[in-house]
């Protein structure tokens, strides 16, 4: 016999995209769903800062840096911004799936990638500044 809980439509299961991305499991505590959404937004703002930084470097440093250095730094920032944005969405979906299945939330693969690219970008900027002073 079906329980009332099984009969009741789950708000978390309507919509074809939601069914496709989150096909199984049970609805987690709504506070966890909202916390996951806020983490996604925090990563997205990091991506936004990187993309905005890339746009700003190219828009405002024309009189300070040469064309190739400017383009290189802007390209690095824009590229890592896009990677960060896509990674944020992937991590959000993986975390939501893990919560629905009652398993541990996966470690974000973005952290080492973002760290490595940030170090490279910092070194490039340092090299550009030092080359300008010499």
């Amino acid at each position, binding site marked *: 016999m079906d329980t009332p809980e099984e009969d009741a439509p*789950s*708000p*978390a*299961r*309507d*919509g074809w*995209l*939601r069914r496709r*991305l*989150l096909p199984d499991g049970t*609805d987690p*505590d*709504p*506070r966890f*769903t*909202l*916390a*996951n*959404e*806020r983490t*996604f*937004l*925090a990563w*997205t*703002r990091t*991506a*936004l*800062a990187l*993309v*905005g930084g*890339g*746009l*700003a470097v*190219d*828009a*405002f440093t*024309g009189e300070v840096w040469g*064309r190739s250095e400017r*383009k290189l730094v*802007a*390209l690095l920032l*824009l*590229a890592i*911004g*896009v990677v960060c*944005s*896509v990674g*944020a*969405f992937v991590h*959000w979906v993986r975390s*939501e799936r893990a919560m629905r299945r009652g398993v541990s939330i996966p470690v974000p693969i973005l952290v080492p990638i973002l760290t490595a690219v940030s170090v490279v970008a910092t070194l490039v900027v340092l090299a550009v500044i030092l080359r300008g002073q010499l």
Partner: protein
Amino acid sequence: MSSPPRRPRAPDDQAERTHLAWTRSLTGLTACSAILVRWLARDVPVVAPLLVITLGAVVAIAVTQRRRIRRQLQGLRDGVIAPDVWGCLSLTAALVLLGVGGVAVLFLSPW
């Protein structure tokens, strides 16, 4: 003497915090739009669509904020909230388009 028991925090602040997180994202997108205005002088046919995408995302978030917080408050009371798949996917798509479009401008612009 023992201290009085703490009252549990109302779950409604979860919706408020999420609402503020969306608002901060909206602010970041607005700042990006302002930088893109500076780029408009370079290459209008490429930069104008990027500006439309960014401002479109800003307007979309602003318009859906009220509905979003109402849905979340209702969900917290009901004990279940549907994850905002379309909201998260749309924001990601807007950012990817902005980043890829930015790279295109970098290479197309003669500056």
